[in-house]
Structure formats: C-alpha cells, structure tokens
C-alpha cells in the first residue's frame, strides 16, 4: 500500500500551494492608479461628481476628463505587478504539475481504497467463519457433555430402552395370550390373578434378574423357590413358570 501512495503527499501539497498562490495573486494592486473626481453640472442644473480611475497603463485620459477641473481624491502608488505575476505563474505551474502526477495518484488512491475495502470484507468473512466454527465447537461440546450425563444417568437408573422393550413384549404376550388361549382364558386368568395377588407385576423384571442370577450360580429349582421367591408352594411354582414363559 505504501509504494502505491508515494505521490499522494506531494499531490496534496502541490494542490494546496496552487490554491494559496492563486488567492495570494488576487490580492494587492496590480498597477499604479489615481482616482479623480470632477464636478459636473448636468442639463437640468443638477450638480454631480464624476469619478475617473486612471491607471498607469492608460494611453489617454478617459472620455470627459478635464485635467484642469478634476481633483485627485485617491492614489495607489504601491504596485505589486511582479509579485502578483510570479504568484500567478507559480500557482499555474503547481496546478499543472499536480495535474500531471494527479492521474496516477488518483488511480493509485482509488486502487488503495479498493484494496482496503476488499481486505476489510475478507477480514469480516474470516471473523464470521471463526465465530461459526466456535459456535459449532460449543454445540459439539454441549452435546458430548449431555451424552456423558445421560450415560451416567442410564448407568444409575437403567436404560429406558429395556422398559420400552419390556412393555412391548408384555403387550405382545398379552395379545398372544388373548389370541391363543381365549378358550381356557378363564382358568389362566384366575391363575394369573392368584399369582398377582402375591407377586405384583412391577417386580417381574427384578425377580427374573435375581432368578437368572441364581440359575447362573447353579441353583436348583427348589433352591430358587425357597431363596429367591421365598414361597415354595403352587403359586411360587406357577410364578416361576410364568416368568420363564415370559422372559425365556
């Protein structure tokens, strides 16, 4: 960017200098002059004063001027002709040179501003990308934290999936039972009612877990009935059969 805008200060300086010189050239008198007033009496006997400005470069007196009657009322004898002309020439030269280097400088300045604009846009885009990335990372981190917490919760309270599957299986079993044994349904229902009076439905799963653990430890049917179900009678046997039918 710096090499492009090399001529910029020179250009601005020359422009200011040229304007200053021009305004300076406007001031101060250009030539020596005298101002004369001449009393006149018009056709209608009205007196008035005619003014004449006579400069040093006038070849003749102006029309109507009478050197005998006119009285000098003002004069400018300090002329600054060379200074004014010099200032004018300086102003013209500065402006001309500024114009010569102007094209390049202006184009360069416009390129500079264009480049700056593009850079600014790029920076903005980069920042946006960064923010997006950070947001995505934050979202991912949140998700992982949530998963961890969920995992801990699942480990503590058990998976809801099992319960869902359990409910599904129960429904299926219920449907099956109601479909197949609609004939001897009354007996099965009375059996189930007897079992449910001792073993409510919500302990089925836990009981089955304990039973399967006992089976894995090599316990016999009687031991299971005594130790796990604590009811070595018909209802206990029927419940064990029911659990086996349900979960195996």
């Amino acid at each position, binding site marked *: 960017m710096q090499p492009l805008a090399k001529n*910029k200060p020179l*250009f*601005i300086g*020359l*422009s200011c200098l*040229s*304007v200053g010189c*021009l305004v300076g*050239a*406007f*001031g*101060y*008198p*250009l*030539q020596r*002059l005298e*101002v004369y*007033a001449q009393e006149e009496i018009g056709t209608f006997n009205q007196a008035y004063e005619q*003014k004449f*400005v006579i*400069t040093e*470069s*006038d*070849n003749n007196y102006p029309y109507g001027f009478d050197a005998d009657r006119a009285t000098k*009322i*003002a004069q*400018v004898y300090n002329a600054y*002709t060379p200074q*004014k*002309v010099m200032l*004018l*020439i300086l*102003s*013209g030269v*500065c*402006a*001309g040179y*500024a*114009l010569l280097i*102007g*094209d390049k*400088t*202006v184009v360069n*300045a*416009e390129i500079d501003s264009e480049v700056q604009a593009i850079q600014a846009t790029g920076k903005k885009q980069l920042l946006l990308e960064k923010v997006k990335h950070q947001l995505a990372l934050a979202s991912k981190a949140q998700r992982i934290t949530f998963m961890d917490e969920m995992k801990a919760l699942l480990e503590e309270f058990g998976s809801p999936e099992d319960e869902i599957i359990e409910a599904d299986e129960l429904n299926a079993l219920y449907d099956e039972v109601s479909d197949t044994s609609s004939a001897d349904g009354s007996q099965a229902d009375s059996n189930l009612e007897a079992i449910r009076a001792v073993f409510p439905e919500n302990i089925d799963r836990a009981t089955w877990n304990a039973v399967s653990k006992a089976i894995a430890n090599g316990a016999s049917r009687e031991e299971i009935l005594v130790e796990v179900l604590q009811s070595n009678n018909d209802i206990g046997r029927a419940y064990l059969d029911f659990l086996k039918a349900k979960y195996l």
Partner: protein
Amino acid sequence: MRHLKNANELVLYAAISCGAAFIGRLFPALYFPILLLRLAIFLYCLYVIATLERNRELAMILGSALFIGMIGGYWDLIEIWLRYDLGAIAQLITITLLFIASLLGLFIYVKNNATTSQK
C-alpha cells in the same frame, strides 16, 4: 482525491484566466480581444453543458474557472470602484446579472428542447 484533481484543474484554468485579465489590464489594447475570447469560451461551455453528454464536467470547471479568474484579475480595481464609485459598480453588477439571467434562460430553453427532442 478525484475532487482534489478537479480543484487542481479549476485552479490551473483560473490562473490562466486571471493571467489573461492581468494582460488585459496591463496592455489596454488587448482588453477587447481578451473579453471576446472569454465570452466565446464561456458560451461554448454553456453549450457543452446544455447539449453534450461528454465533457460536461470539464465545461463546468472551465466556466467557473473563467468567472473566478475574471473576478480575481480585477479584484483590486473592483475594490477601488467599491470605495469611490458605487454608481459604476452598481451598473456593472446590473449588467452582469442581466447577462447571466439571459444566459440562464437560454440554457434552460436549450436543455428543455434537447430533452423533449430525445423523447
């Protein structure tokens, strides 16, 4: 930057115009030719602004530069007139204003005609 460049152009032309005014004052024989030249350029600028699409900016700069240069070139004399001969300056201003008003009228007329003929 572009405005500064235009200002430079304005200053250059104003300097030339002011120089012409100085020449016209220092050599009274050249006063009338310079006045004619100035008027011709001014009218041409108005014509360009009114009718042509291109170089309008340049014409505006040139016209205003002529005006600035003329006033600047005669400024010390205008000061004298303002102080000692207000009648003359009043006449000058009246004539100038009338001239500008008629030129503006012409300018608007030409411009309106140009736009209507385009339609």
